[in-house]
């Protein structure tokens, strides 16, 4: 999965199978937001094989740890998105139910 030099853990290219822009682009964003990362980019070497290469260079921390942390960060973000969304939907539904209840009261 990992290509890159064994001497210098602070940089590496990670090759992921069965992934595309969906994961690679969002991970690139999360990685770029990490202050330890000096460079990050991704490429899809050939459109007909399902594979992305993610290149990471850091200020000194091991690249694979930084990548793992970024994945962890992104999971936290996703969880927050999910809970916020669920809450918004619930609020909307209860508001709608209340409204229909009120209109029923007016009619009766």
């Amino acid at each position, binding site marked *: 999965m990992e290509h890159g030099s064994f001497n210098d853990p602070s940089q590496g290219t*990670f090759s992921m199978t069965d992934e595309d822009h*969906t994961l690679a682009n969002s*991970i690139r964003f999360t990685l770029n937001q990490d202050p330890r990362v000096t460079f990050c980019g991704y490429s899809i070497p050939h459109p007909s094989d399902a594979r992305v290469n993610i290149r990471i260079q850091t200020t000194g921390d091991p690249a694979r740890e930084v990548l793992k942390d970024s*994945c962890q*960060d992104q999971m936290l973000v996703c969880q927050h*998105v999910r809970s916020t*969304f*669920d809450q918004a939907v619930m609020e909307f*539904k209860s508001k709608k139910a209340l409204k229909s209840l009120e209109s029923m009261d007016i009619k009766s």
Partner: protein
Amino acid sequence: MVSANEEQRTEKIPVWDLPDVPSGNLPAHLELQRTRTVCTNDAPIHTENIQYSGAYASMGVDNSMRFEKFCKNFRVEVIRLGDDEMEFDMVGIDASLANAFRRILISELPTMAIENVLVANNTSVVQDEVLAHRLGLIPLKVDPRLFNYKSENDQPSEKNTIVFKLHSRCEKKSSRINVKSSELKWLPGGSEFALSTEKPTQDSTSKVKTYTSFTCSQDSLPEFSSNPIAPTHDDITLAVLGPGQEIELEAHAVKGMGKTHAKWSPVATAWYRMLPEVILLQEIEDEKAEELIKKCPVNVFDIEDIGKGRKRATVARPRSCTLCRECIRGDDWDKLVALQRVKDHFIFTIESTGALPPDVLFTEAVKILEDKCERVITEMS
């Protein structure tokens, strides 16, 4: 000898350390560049997102995303929510994540769709393959989370296959009939077609082998006993039968994903647009205001009375702006009106095909992105 006064003059002071440069805040023009896409007459500018955490380090501004900061700024507001359509605002998130959710909604959420069609008889004018393709595109009202994927060498079972029967005949001397999707009848017990390779057994009590091997009837399962499986819409025309024509077939639906074939996509479409922002750079009054209102094809502007018979243009409905740029065309109008998009405000619309409600689809999509991240973590450790 150098005097103290001169020494001070030669000392280099970075421009951002000057007392009149605000620290911790970006100058207005950079903040605009960072948060807005500006639509000018010839092309939009500042379309790129500044992702790098140290982009503004020299100005003492931290561009990295702190989770706490994200939590504080992120919000969701539901605008519309129906059985198969919803619109909501997602504010405070980067386009790369919003786009990941959109891509997952379209191509990586599983649904059930008809994949194999066993045609026993088809004398209609619609060819078998065309009919099979049409059947495949019918959305089915069934929760895909209750089923497993069926791989190449799996036996079709009650856990991975749904079987429908279609038998329709147009009697001779009657008029033509339309075969609708409502005629697809769910067979909870599995296929009724006997395998042709199977030799007829002498023992009449033994069960005839069919194209599926269900161990139990699907309608005995608690999930399906109360809501039987059927197409979402029962008025989709599948074929037209002339007098004497007949179709008899069995359709087997399996679980799949939109990236294999669009028939498995759970959404008709899922899209987002960034919030449009219309700003009047100067007061626009009287005739000029009337002219502005006439210019806009989607009726974004309104006129307000400011007394003494004078009128002023206001931005009443910026959300409906399509950024068509009619209002900034010609005669220095671009000095009066600015058209922008807010980069981190997404108006998300999801149109479900009916298998799952749109709000459930979105939460499922977010879960899939989480799973992807988790997969990377487990593969690396």
